[in-house]
């Protein structure tokens, strides 16, 4: 197995786009997070103490953008091989397909989780520095944002896991679909278009069900630190829903990868 891992790592590392995409995961997460935090201050609320802003969640807004880079990285890690025909060499070198898939999944996910950890931690630290100057001070009833705080740590660590699961789904979908454009469009639809539908459906009953069962909306409840009682699904359960989707697509991918001709 370690041979497969090393081989997969070498392949991932030597694709020029990988380094860019890792930088994008970190940079985009951080950039949008900082922009979102900087655009909100207590002056827009009737009084500074009634903003009801979930500052931890606000600081993690960048995950919305970082997940695009994660999806591209995961999809390209798979489809590049199919496009170039390299997959035949890969399978000739290590005929156990499940091992190849597992190896690829491991290196992609570990890479993404490492990058996501940097981006997410950076976002929280940057937000902690910016928020007080925008009026989110203990005097106004907002605790200083800190990773030492239980719910904030859960939101941050959960966001890293969320991005890791996005990578798993990206690898699985790309293994199923094989074409870059089709796989990426499917992944981006799940990550961006379905949340739109969830958000703008007006019937409360429908909205609650959709929030509970749509992969990214459910998964991102892990970022909530206030108003938990009003959530349609609790944070860890929400992340669990996403993990369930990841597991199902992965099993399907493994089954297809095992039975199909290398194309």
């Amino acid at each position: 197995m370690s041979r497969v891992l090393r081989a997969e790592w070498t392949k991932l590392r030597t694709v020029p786009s990988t380094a860019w995409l890792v930088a994008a995961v970190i940079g985009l997460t951080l950039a949008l997070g900082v922009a979102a935090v900087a655009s909100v201050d207590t002056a827009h609320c009737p009084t500074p103490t009634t903003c009801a802003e979930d500052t931890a969640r606000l600081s993690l807004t960048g995950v919305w953008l970082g997940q695009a880079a994660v999806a591209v990285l995961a999809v390209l890690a798979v489809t590049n091989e199919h496009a170039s025909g390299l997959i035949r060499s890969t399978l000739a070198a290590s005929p156990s397909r499940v091992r190849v898939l597992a190896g690829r999944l491991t290196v992609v996910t570990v890479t993404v989780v490492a990058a996501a950890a940097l981006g997410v931690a950076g976002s929280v630290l940057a937000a902690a520095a910016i928020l007080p100057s925008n009026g989110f001070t203990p005097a106004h009833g907002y605790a200083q944002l800190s990773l030492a705080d239980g719910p904030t740590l859960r939101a941050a660590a959960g966001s890293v896991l969320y991005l890791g699961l996005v990578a798993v789904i990206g690898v699985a979908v790309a293994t199923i679909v094989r074409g870059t454009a089709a796989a990426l469009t499917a992944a981006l639809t799940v990550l961006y278009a379905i949340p739109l539908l969830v958000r703008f459906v007006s019937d409360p009953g429908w909205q609650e069900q959709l929030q509970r069962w749509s992969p990214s909306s459910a998964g991102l409840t892990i970022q909530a630190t206030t108003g938990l009682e009003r959530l349609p699904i609790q944070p860890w359960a929400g992340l669990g829903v996403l993990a369930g989707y990841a597991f199902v697509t992965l099993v399907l991918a493994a089954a297809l990868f095992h039975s199909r001709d290398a194309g």
Partner: protein
Amino acid sequence: MTTTLRPVPPRSQRAAGFGRLLRAEWTKFRSVPGWVAGMVAAVVVTVLVSLLAASGSGTDANDVPDLVTGPDGGLVADAFQFVHGPMTGDGSVTVRVTGQDASHDDAMAGLMIKDGTTPGSVYAALMVTPADGVRLRAMFDADVAGRDGVAPRWLRLVRSGTEVTGYESADGIDWAEVGTVDVPGLPETAELGVFVASPPDVRVERQAGSTSVGEVETIGRATFADLAVDADDAVAPERWSGTDVGRTGTGAVTIAGGVLTVTGSGDIGPDPPDDDPVQIGLFGAVVGLMVVIAVAVLFATSEYGRAMIRTTFAVTPRRGQVLAAKAIVIGGVTFVAGLVAAVTAVLLTRPLLRDAGFGPPAFPESSLFDGPVLRAVVGTAAMLAVVAVLALAAGILTRHSAGAITGVVLLVVLPILVASALPPGAAEWIMRLTPAGALAIQRTKDPTAGLVEPWAMVGPWAGFGMLCLYATVAMALAARSLRGRDT
């Protein structure tokens, strides 16, 4: 050295050349089964998601007690403080508005003639406002602007049959006509008087994905003097009585030293709910958009995948024209597909939405060919087409499918998600500056901050125009990069 250049061919010949290019690019598009399937999928996805969105939508706008409907059957606001008495036949009334509180930009104080005091009945009114100068309004939709400026101001309202004419004056000596409005259905005996209204302030709060809309009442106050009625058969102003039309509960009238002081709240005008069933019925376009982006990007990047572009440019060395032909083909194909999807979606979702409460009077019946509905349906197709052109240009510029698809999806969709989690000010700017605002073309109603959908804050053409601007700039960059580039 001498290079023989052929003389420029006549215009008709050049047009024929471009026509050939269009046919060639169309053949390229239709001969790749995946792209044709993609366009069909975009239509199917748009219709299905629209149906899903319609099934998941509902409204209680028709279940509110005491709905006020105007003469055309639509919902209206009709609440104000009215000090009035009856007048039969023609006549006129003159007053000096000596002062008006700036309780709201659209606060009103002035003269009115109305069919009784029932909310929703026909009327004509001449008023001063703190921000919009003198206005002559009638029937909840007619609105004639007079001069700018605020109280004090003389106003005169003249009735002749069902026509009502307004005049204004700074000093009561030199009068200027504001205009004439027709008030069909105004009875022979109508209520004549002075009125004061002041609309509520709308407060929208949007935090971390949740939006709350609140209304805070404002109280308007104005003072009137030199009230005079000139008519054969009218009750004199001294015997007028006050009515709190629409029962706002804030009205009051006092008289002291010949000066009438009136306070009142409320608004007069059309008041349809912000929810827009046409937009809900077109919601699937956002998801269909994803497929359109992928197909349009591939239409561009497939040229580079196997150096196809060399064949293309060897066949047609005029690269700018190749790009234009590609844009017209992908834009045209997308427009037709989008139109089919939009018409189908609107027609199929209509009965679902009516069952879910989107019916008259709050939501008057509309035809596909009503102006705003037509704009939304054709606009949806146009929006998809322009996004396709933007995606094509992005594909030419990046020559990389994954990068171009992701970039365009983020440009069009991410701003919506981010904006709906930010306060209204920031959200509105995001909608004004990104192509995401183009979704406003799907709305048939006026811009409002009262909805969850952030694009509802911008007007239909503002958002669509910004998308066109992005596409134009991207196409210009793509053309420039093609011109200079070795293949």
